[in-house]
């Protein structure tokens, strides 16, 4: 079965530190990749997505992610975090690009940024 692994469950950083959150998936075929963010008390919102093309994807709020096919990874990065980035981050994978495919989520990473 397809699975998505987020190895860091909790991350604590100081403001201005660099961030990298890991995401690995197990499916070997064509994939569509997503990062969602859930700020405290708010709904999940899409941070960025990868469908095809340039493997370096830029999203909102200065986030980016790199798709490395050989490593089955889609890690999320931000050069300098802010206190307002405190949230839970979910990686998600959708298999293939035709027909209906389910979105499979990782278990999430809670990020706490201290001022």
């Amino acid at each position: 079965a397809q699975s998505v692994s987020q190895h860091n469950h909790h991350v604590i950083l100081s403001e201005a530190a660099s961030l990298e959150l890991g995401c690995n998936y197990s499916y070997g075929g064509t994939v569509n990749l997503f990062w969602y963010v859930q700020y405290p008390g708010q709904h999940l919102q899409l941070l960025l997505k990868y469908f095809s093309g340039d493997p370096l994807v830029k999203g909102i709020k200065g986030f980016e992610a790199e798709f490395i096919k050989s490593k089955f990874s889609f890690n999320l990065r931000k050069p300098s975090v802010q206190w307002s980035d405190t949230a839970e981050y979910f990686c998600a994978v959708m298999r293939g690009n035709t027909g209906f495919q389910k979105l499979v989520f990782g278990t999430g990473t809670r990020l706490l940024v201290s001022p």
Partner: protein
Amino acid sequence: DVKVTQSSRYLVKRTGEKVFLECVQDMDHENMFWYRQDPGLGLRLIYFSYDVKMKEKGDIPEGYSVSREKKERFSLILESASTNQTSMYLCASSLAGGEVYSNQPQHFGDGTRLSIL
């Protein structure tokens, strides 16, 4: 902007009760989903629907059923609530994408935090 509205933010029910969670989206999306979110487990798909009156089981459908009588509304039903169904429930919707593209992002509601006593 897509709006997915869940009828309640917080709900408290008793074991054995029949519980209805309602979700409405305003963007004419074909696909709708119900997830539950638990600490350390992420989001797990309960049921989804890709058309009116159509429904498919997700990964954890046991103890739940759904109803989609209208395109904009997708209801989750706990037939006989149990304490292990205490959780955060999230509704989402997305465009169908059709045969060519299925990779449409899902849009989420604010969630319903359900407590079963």
